[in-house]
């Protein structure tokens, strides 16, 4: 059975959940093989094996993380040439898409981005135009390169050998031309990643100001959720731009999305329309966001949201 390569998303060996989702999808197509670039592989091996990786290719040289994007593409391109995998799966993050993009050119392959499902024959399902159109696509040339959105599938335990195979890759001069000279970490306040979170609680113009986001954050924390914002809220400077959900912000597809004081403009819906369950709090019964709601309350968020937070606290004991 041909291998299916999965690029591991990790921070110093702590593997992100999306990687396990990719391994689960890979098993439908062939034999999952993880590709780990950077340091910390030892910590990652057990989890990768547990989720189905028969092989874990490890490329751990300092220069691989000293330059953006290109080194990972070259590691994958080398493995694609040597192993002739049935497909390569990557996370649909900004970096995952760019690695896939360079790999497509290097390996002479087509690429599909933002898949929400992948079938055994490599057919990918995409939800385009903000989720209003569902498309089935297939790569027709080279090795199918598919980037998959977080939360597309439930990761499954499928214990496999997880045999470590170290690989050495000679980087091209072009890959080394751009250098990372500094890494700056900005505090994210202990909440889960917006793109990865199972629950997202968002606020819009109805929140009224930066202080108003206090009630949104309190609700988020009661559910262990990430906080999101509409562009009206980020434009006004009430909440940082990296938390914007929508067409020109992040695309999220959590199990639960709670929209507070958000009208539901087409560009906002583009970033959250594929959420599994949507709850809405808005004082205008005509707000278009109610069209997406599984459950909605027409009311003032400043009374409804704190009451909800308190109630969750009680029920969780």
């Amino acid at each position, binding site marked *: 059975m041909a291998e299916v390569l999965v690029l591991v998303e990790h921070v110093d060996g702590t593997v992100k959940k999306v990687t396990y989702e990719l391994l689960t999808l890979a098993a439908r197509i062939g034999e999952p093989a993880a590709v780990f670039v950077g340091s910390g592989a030892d910590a990652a091996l057990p989890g990768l094996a547990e989720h189905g990786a028969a092989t874990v290719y490890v490329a751990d040289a300092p220069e691989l993380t000293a330059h*953006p*994007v*290109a080194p990972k*593409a070259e590691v994958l391109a080398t493995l694609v040439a040597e192993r002739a995998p049935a497909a390569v799966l990557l996370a649909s*993050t*900004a970096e995952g898409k*760019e690695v896939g*993009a*360079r790999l*497509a*050119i290097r390996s002479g392959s*087509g*690429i599909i*981005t933002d898949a929400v499902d992948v079938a055994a024959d490599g057919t990918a399902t995409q*939800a*385009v*135009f903000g989720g*209003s*159109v*569902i*498309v089935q*696509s*297939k*790569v*027709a*040339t080279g090795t199918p390169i598919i980037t998959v959105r977080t939360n597309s599938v439930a990761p499954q335990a499928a214990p496999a050998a997880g045999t470590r195979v170290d690989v050495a890759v000679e980087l091209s*001069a*072009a890959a080394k*031309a*751009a*250098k*990372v*000279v*500094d890494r*700056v970490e*900005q505090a994210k306040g202990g909440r889960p990643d917006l793109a990865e979170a199972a629950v997202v609680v968002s606020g819009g113009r109805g929140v009224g100001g930066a202080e108003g986001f206090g009630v949104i954050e309190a609700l988020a924390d009661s559910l262990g959720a990430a906080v999101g914002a509409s562009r009206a809220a980020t434009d006004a400077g009430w909440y940082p731009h990296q938390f914007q959900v929508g*067409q*020109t912000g992040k*695309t999220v597809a959590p199990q*639960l999305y709670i929209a507070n004081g958000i009208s539901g403009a087409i*560009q906002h819906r*583009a970033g959250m329309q594929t959420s599994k369950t*949507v709850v809405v*709090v808005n004082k205008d019964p005509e707000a278009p966001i109610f*069209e*997406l709601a*599984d*459950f*909605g*309350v*027409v*009311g003032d968020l400043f*009374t409804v949201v704190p*009451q*909800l937070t*308190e*109630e*969750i606290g009680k*029920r*969780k004991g």
Partner: protein
Amino acid sequence: MREVDSATMKIVVCVKQVPDSWAEKTLRPSDHTLDRESVDAVMNELDEYAVEEALRLQESQGGEVVVLSMGPSQATDTIRKALSMGADAGVHVVDDGLHGSDAVATSLALAKAIEAQGADLVIFGSESTDARMSVVPAMVAERLGLPQLTFSSSVSVEGGTVRTNRVTEYGYDVVEAPLPALVSVVEKINEPRYPSFKGIMAAKKKPVSTLDLAGLGIAPAEVGLGAAWSVVAEAAARPPKAKGTIVADDGAGGVAIADFLSAQKFI
């Protein structure tokens, strides 16, 4: 490394024409490509930031700004808009054979056109608002062997070196490279200017050259729908969502949501 005298720095900005993001977009039933006729076309909003960044670099350093767009004949409107913001000249890649090109083919056409210009710095937006792939800049960098400094929230050029802040999931990376180089910029890196009346009048006289496949040295078989390396087999409107339960807050709206969340096992 090539010595770049900033006063003669040539910046190429890539802009895409897209359907207005307010429009309901659909795929044409005949070939599953975007129906671009039934909706208003505008410059990809994220590319306005790229044009603005190019103009700012030009204002502080000198040099020339050329705007490059691949698209059907009406894409000249988008090129004119960039010219009316202040860019010096336009290049329009247009050929019926390009219809239906995938990202791989698009990057080929753009790379050839950029090569012909001999750019010192190439600036992209970070994503189109129609297909939203965020892959074309990385593909062009790979094709041209240019250093890739994408997803930039700041860009500066000094003495032949470009320095950017690359937005990451945890904050940002400071990235540096010698020119010539390729940059993409994120939303909100700057405040794009509106074209002035004077700018709009001046744009009418600015040169826009066109390039077709033959001019780019691309064989028709390499691009377009027929050559696409990824193909759409099927497209359908998303089934409408079943209507949810909407209640008016009677003083216990928060409790009602908690009941719903408990029933759905979220609590």
